[in-house]
C-alpha cells in the first residue's frame, strides 16, 4: 500500500494540477494578507473559501484522478496485490497531495507575514486542520462515487451534485425545516443537522472561534453546553474523523466486491 501511495503521490506531485492548486492558494494567501493588511479579516475570508472550495476541488479532483488512472489500476489489479491496498494507496496519495498544496499554499504567505508572532495562530491552525479534514472526506466520497459509476459523465455529475447538495442545498433545506418547525424546541435538531454534514460541521468548528459571542446569544442549555465549553470542539472533531472513516471503509468494501 505504501508503495502505491508513494507512486500516486509522486505522480500527482509531478502533475500540473497540483501546482495550479498550490499556486492558487499561494496567490490567495498573498493577496489576502498583503493587500488587505488585516489578519482577522483575512482569516474570515479564508474560512469562506476553504469551506466552499476545498470540498469542490476534493470531489472533482478525486473523481478525475480515479477515471484517469483507471488503466493503470487495471494493470495493478492483474498483479498479486491486495485490492484494498491499491485503492487506499491511491486515495491517500490524492488526499495527501491535495492537503499538502493547501497547507503549503496558505501556510507560506502566513508564515512570511509573521503568523508565529500574532495571536491569530490558533484560528489559522484550526482553518488548516478543518481544510485538511475536508480534503480527506471529500476525496473519499469522490472515490466512492467513482467506484460505483463506470460511466465517467455520470460520475462527474454525481460528484458535482454531491458538492452542491452538501455545500448549498442542505443548508437551504435545513433552514426551511428550522423555520417550519419553529414552534418546537429545535436546539438538538439543529446540532444534529450540523453533525450530518461535514461542511456544516467544519463551519461550526470555525464559528466556535470567530463568532462565539453571537452563538452564545441563543437561549438554550444544549447550545450553551455545546458552544460554551470544549465539548463542542471535541464532538466536532470526533464527527469529522467519523466522516473520514466511513467513506474509507466503503472504498475498501466496494473495491473488494467490484467486478473489473
Amino acid at each position, binding site marked *: 500500500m505504501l508503495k502505491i501511495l508513494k507512486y500516486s503521490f509522486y505522480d500527482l506531485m509531478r502533475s500540473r494540477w497540483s501546482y495550479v492548486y498550490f499556486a492558487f492558494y499561494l496567490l490567495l494567501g498573498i493577496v489576502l494578507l498583503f493587500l488587505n493588511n488585516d489578519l482577522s479579516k483575512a482569516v474570515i475570508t479564508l474560512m469562506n473559501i476553504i469551506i466552499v472550495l476545498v470540498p469542490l476541488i476534493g470531489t472533482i479532483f478525486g473523481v478525475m484522478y480515479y477515471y484517469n488512472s483507471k488503466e493503470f489500476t487495471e494493470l495493478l489489479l492483474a498483479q498479486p496485490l491486495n485490492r484494498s491496498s491499491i485503492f487506499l494507496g491511491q486515495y491517500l496519495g490524492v488526499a495527501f497531495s491535495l492537503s499538502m498544496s493547501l497547507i503549503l499554499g496558505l501556510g507560506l504567505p502566513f508564515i512570511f507575514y509573521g503568523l508565529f508572532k500574532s495571536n491569530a495562530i490558533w484560528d489559522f491552525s484550526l482553518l488548516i486542520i478543518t481544510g485538511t479534514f475536508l480534503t480527506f472526506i471529500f476525496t473519499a466520497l469522490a472515490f466512492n462515487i467513482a467506484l460505483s459509476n463506470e460511466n465517467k459523465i455520470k460520475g462527474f455529475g454525481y460528484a458535482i451534485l454531491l458538492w452542491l447538495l452538501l455545500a448549498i442545498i442542505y443548508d437551504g433545506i435545513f433552514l426551511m425545516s428550522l423555520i417550519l418547525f419553529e414552534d418546537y424546541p429545535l436546539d438538538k435538531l439543529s446540532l444534529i443537522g450540523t453533525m450530518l454534514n461535514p461542511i456544516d460541521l467544519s463551519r461550526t468548528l470555525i464559528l466556535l472561534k470567530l463568532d462565539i459571542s453571537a452563538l*452564545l446569544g441563543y437561549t438554550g442549555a444544549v447550545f450553551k453546553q455545546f458552544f460554551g465549553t470544549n465539548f463542542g470542539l471535541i464532538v466536532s472533531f470526533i464527527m469529522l474523523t467519523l466522516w473520514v472513516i466511513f467513506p474509507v471503509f466503503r472504498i475498501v468494501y466496494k473495491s473488494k466486491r467490484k467486478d473489473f
Partner: protein
Amino acid sequence: MKNIKVFFTLFLWLLCLQMVCAQRIEVCKDCGITSLKEAILKAKDYDTILVKKGIYKEYNIQIDKPLTIIGENYPVIDGELKGEIITIVSDYVTVDGLFIINVGTSYTEDYAAIRVKRSKHFEIKNLVLEKLFFGIYLEKAEDGKVHNNKVIGQAIQEHNSGNAIQLWYSKKISIQNNIVQHVRDGIYLEFSDDCIIKNNVSTNNLRYGLHFMFSNNDIYENNEFSKNGAGVAVMFSKKIKMYNNVFKENWGTASYGVLLKEINDAEIIGNTFEENTIGINIEGSNRIVYKNNDFINNGWAIKVRGACYTNQFVGNNFLYNSFDISYNSNINDNVFDRNYWSNYTGYDLDKNGIGDVPYRPVKLFSYIVNRTPETIILLRSLFIDIIDFSEKVSPVFTPDNLMDNNPLIKKIP
C-alpha cells in the same frame, strides 16, 4: 538647612492645627483609645482620627459629627458578619485608607460596609472592601466624592448579594478611579442626578457592571466594563453622556455591552464595544447620538428592538461583527451616515473616500435569526450568503430606507 526650615514650618503648622483648629486622636491597640467607636465619641467637630495598623472588630459605627478618619497602613475593620459597619450621618466627613471586611448579610436590610445617609460634602477614598454585602451605599447624599476605592466581593447568587457602589436619591456625586469586582451590580444609580463616573474598572460582576435607573444628566467617562453577567444597563433616564468607555466580553443570552431602555437625548461618543454578544441593545430610546464608537467582533453590534426614533449613527467603525445591525420592524426613522463597515463591498471611483454604493447594514439573515433563533447555527453558510445577497439587491423583509448613503472606505482612526 532647607530641610530643617521646611520641617520647622510644617511643625509650626501642625502645632497650630493641634491647638487652634482641630485635634488629632490616635487609635491603636496600645493607645488610650482602642476602638474607633470610642474615638468618635471623644472627638469634637472637625477632629482627625488616626487609626493605626491592627484589627478592630467593630460594627454599627456611627459618624455623627464632621470628622476625618484616616487609616495608617490599612487597619482592618472587621464587622464579623454582624451588620452594617460604618454609617455616616453628618456633613463634612472624610474616610480614608481603611480595610473593611465581613459585612453582615441580611434579606430584610441592606447592610453596607459604609453608608452615607442624608449628608453633604463627604469624601470616601482609598478604601479596600472585601467580603461584603453592599459596599458603599449613598442614601440621599449630595456633593460627595468616592475615589480610589477597591471593592472585591464574592457574589455567587443574585438574591443574596449586594452592589459595590450604590446611589439612591443622591446628587452631584463624583465616582472616580474605583475598582469593583465580583459583586452583584458594580455601580448602581437610582434616582441620582448630575453625577460624574470616571476611570472606574468594573469587572466580573454577577449582573451589571453599571446599572442605572431614573438618573438624569450623568456623565460616564473612560470607564471599563468587562466580563459582567449582563454588561451595562441604562434605563429610564434622560440626558446621559457616555464618553470613551470600554465595554468588553459580556457574553451570554441576555448580555449586552450596553442595554438602553427608555433613554432620551443621550450622547454616546467614542466608546469601544468589543466581543460582546450584543454591543448595544436599544429599546424605546429616542434622539440619541452615536458618534465615533468602535464596534469590534460583537455578535450583534446594534440590536434595535423597537420604538426607537430619530437616533443618529454617525462616524462609527463597525468591524467584523457577526451582525452589524438587527432590526425587527419595517419602518426606520434613524439616520446612519458616514460610518465605516468592514463588511462593505462597494467601490469608490471618484476617490473621495466615500463609497459610491450605499451600504445596507441589516441582513435578511438577522431577520431570520430574530424569528427563529436556532438558525444562528447556519451563520456564514454559503446558502445564507446567497439569500443575503438577493435581499440586498431587492429588499423585502428589511427596511428599504435603512442604509448608509455615505459609507466610508477607510477605517476612522
